[in-house]
C-alpha cells in the first residue's frame, strides 16, 4: 500500500497536483506516535576495533589452555588463549594473593595461569578484591527533620 501511495505521490508531483506539497510538509501525528514504538535492535556480531594493517598476514595459531574450574557452571569459560584469564580466575588469583601473599606470589601466579610476570605484577598492584562489610540494620538511624 505504501509503495502504491509513493507511486501516486510521484505521479501527483510530476502531474502538478496542487495539494501535494502541503501534505508532504504537514506534521502527521499518527505517524509520529507509531514511530515512537519502533525499536531497532542490532543482532549483528559486534564489530571488533580493527588495528589496521596486518590483515593480510597469516594468523599465528592461538595457543589455548583449559581454565581452572569456577563455580558458575555453564556460565564458566572453559578455554582461554594463553596469556588471558577468565573473570572467575582473575577473582580467584586476586583473592588468593590477598589472603596468602607468601604462598600466592606473583611468580607462582604467572606460572599457574600462563601469564607474563609483568602483567601479574600490574594486576596485583591495581586490582584488589573488596572487603565486604555488612552493616547491621539496627545501627542505621534515620535523621529526624528539625
Amino acid at each position, binding site marked *: 500500500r505504501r509503495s502504491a501511495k509513493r507511486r501516486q505521490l510521484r505521479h501527483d508531483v510530476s502531474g502538478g497536483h496542487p495539494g501535494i506539497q502541503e501534505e508532504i510538509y504537514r506534521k502527521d501525528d499518527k505517524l509520529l506516535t507509531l514511530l515512537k514504538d519502533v525499536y531497532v535492535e542490532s543482532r549483528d556480531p*559486534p564489530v*571488533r*576495533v580493527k*588495528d589496521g594493517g596486518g590483515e593480510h598476514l597469516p594468523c599465528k595459531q592461538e595457543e589455548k589452555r583449559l581454565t581452572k574450574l569456577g563455580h558458575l557452571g555453564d556460565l564458566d*569459560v572453559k578455554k*582461554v*588463549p594463553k*596469556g*588471558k*584469564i*577468565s*573473570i572467575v580466575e*582473575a*577473582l580467584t588469583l*586476586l583473592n588468593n594473593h590477598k589472603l596468602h601473599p607468601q604462598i600466592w606470589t606473583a611468580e607462582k601466579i604467572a606460572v599457574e595461569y600462563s*601469564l607474563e610476570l609483568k*602483567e601479574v605484577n*600490574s*594486576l596485583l*598492584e*591495581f*586490582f*584488589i*578484591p*573488596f572487603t565486604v562489610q555488612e552493616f547491621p540494620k539496627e545501627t542505621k538511624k534515620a535523621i529526624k527533620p528539625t
Partner: protein
Amino acid sequence: MFIEGYSSRGFTISGDLVVGPCAVLPRTILQWNVGSYRDISHESLSLFRLLEPQIEILVLGTGDRVERLHPAMLKHMRESGIAVEVQDTPNACATFNFLTSEKRVAAAGLIPPRGTYKGM
C-alpha cells in the same frame, strides 16, 4: 549490573556501596587502586586487557571532568581490540548503564568525582 549512584566517596552498584575508585567488570566489582586519572596507565588497565571473553568497550570515568589520557596507551587498548570511552565520571556511569542495558560486553574504570552527591 547497573551503577545506581555516585558520590565523592564512591558508588552504589547493584545495591552495594563501594568506596573509592572501582573497576566494574561483567558480574564483578573490584577496587581499582588508582589515586587520580594520572594513574591510568597501561599497567593499571591490565585486567581489562587480559580478560577472556574479551571486553568490547571500556568506559573510563576520570572524575569531575574529562581528562586527556596518554594517546599511546589508548592506541594500545584499541589494538588489543577494546574500544575506550573517556568521560567525566557522572557521564561514564550513565554510558556504562546504557551499554549494559544494550547487552554490550562493557567494563568501567571509575574514579569518584569530588563534587557533591547527586542521585542518578
